């Protein structure tokens, strides 16, 4: 791709846009020049909202979901089922499950999956934190809602093996979700059915 003609500042903006998911070099260029043409107050608003999001966001110290209050709204909501934890890989998986409206318990976000080839093991995920919760909270059931790919299933297997001796009921979402693909992209109805029809391992 030839960017000749862009000043260093504009090129930097293009490069930054290019880092975003789903943005190729062409789109990055288009966005950058679109922004340059925008009225100043609109671009200032955009810049400010990005900064304020970054500054106000923390991970919930209980479930590790992204939140602006700690504990998050889900963890501090006493109307939710306090005896069930649904384990997911990413905050976006949690959001997809919440949208399905089919699950009313607690969550635990691992922030990834075991991926030996990329050097990501249990220590790099919020697995220790999960076991700490299981020790301290009164949990009857753990739902392992990791992605249905090799890494997600390995993560579920690893947690399941460690939980086997605890007597806590372990379930996985029902079939219907297809192999591979990220949970966050599953449609709400399928996701809802899968979580309601969850079954023991």
């Amino acid at each position, binding site marked *: 791709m030839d960017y000749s003609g862009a000043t260093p500042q504009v090129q930097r903006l293009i490069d930054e846009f290019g880092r975003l998911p*789903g943005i190729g070099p062409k789109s990055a260029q288009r966005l950058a020049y679109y922004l340059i043409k925008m009225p100043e107050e609109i671009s200032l608003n955009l810049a400010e909202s990005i900064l304020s999001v970054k500054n106000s966001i923390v991970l919930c110290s209980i479930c590790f979901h992204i939140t602006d209050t700690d504990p998050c709204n889900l963890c501090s909501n006493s109307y939710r089922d306090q005896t069930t934890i649904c384990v997911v890989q990413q905050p976006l998986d949690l959001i997809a499950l919440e949208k399905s409206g089919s699950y009313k318990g607690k969550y635990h976000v691992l922030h990834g999956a075991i991926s*030996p080839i990329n050097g990501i093991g249990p220590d790099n995920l919020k697995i220790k934190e999960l076991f700490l919760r299981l020790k301290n909270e009164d949990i009857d059931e753990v739902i392992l809602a990791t992605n249905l790919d090799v890494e997600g299933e390995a993560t579920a297997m690893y947690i399941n093996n460690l939980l086997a001796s605890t007597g806590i009921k372990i379930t996985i979402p029902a079939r219907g*979700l297809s192999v*591979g693909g*990220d949970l966050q992209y599953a449609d709400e109805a399928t996701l809802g059915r899968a979580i309601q029809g969850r079954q023991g391992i």
Partner: protein
Amino acid sequence: MVSNKTYVTEALILNHRDFGETDLLITLFTKLFGKVPVVARRAKMPNSKFSSGVQLLNRVQVSIGRGRNLDHMNECEIVDSFQGIKSDLALLSKGLFSSELVVNFIQDRTPNIQVFNALLKNLNDLEMQNNIEQSMIWFQLQLINFSGVLPEFIVCINCNENLQRMDHIFFPSIGGINCANCSDINLKDGVVILEESLGFLRHIQRMIRSSKSYLFDKNIDENTLKDLNRFLRIYLSYTAERQMKSTKFLDLVN
């Protein structure tokens, strides 16, 4: 159909990483064209035609379109998904270790059918739980052999005399062992290798030189296996100039 725009081949899925929002960049080990990076469009979507095919360690039949920069996947049909391996963490960690070794030892777009067949055999052994430990060692030796870095285990690297049956010190930097008469005090980073391990490595070296296939007909005790694995790990990271990332998980679950 094979044209200059598309090619069809058998392949193993070695690795994948996110590529944009919903695409995956797959590292394929193709039987005919060697290791090839290929974009699988929308493979992160659950309803994608690729999502189940491009799972790690799958043996697949693929049709690939040549692109200006990157090739892209047209079709991907599963031949074997090795469910036995994937439902056992110890086996999975071994399969992924073998696969990472290939990623590190094989150049892109250089056909290497022997290593392809060796990896396929290794995965089949893991799947059938057939001499798992020996298969792992055999695979690693095949890989270093076909990468042209198989050390000398039978004779002294300096004087060519047969090495005595005893424990020896192996030097990765010279790819072999000096006999007692030729010992060189300037050599660094020697690795002790037990007599029993050396006996097994010699056996394999003879098999390889006579192009015979190894039938896992040797009995190796636990201690020797441990020593062989230790030796191979040191030698492989020396030749690859890096540690394999998957060894951490391998050690954790085995």
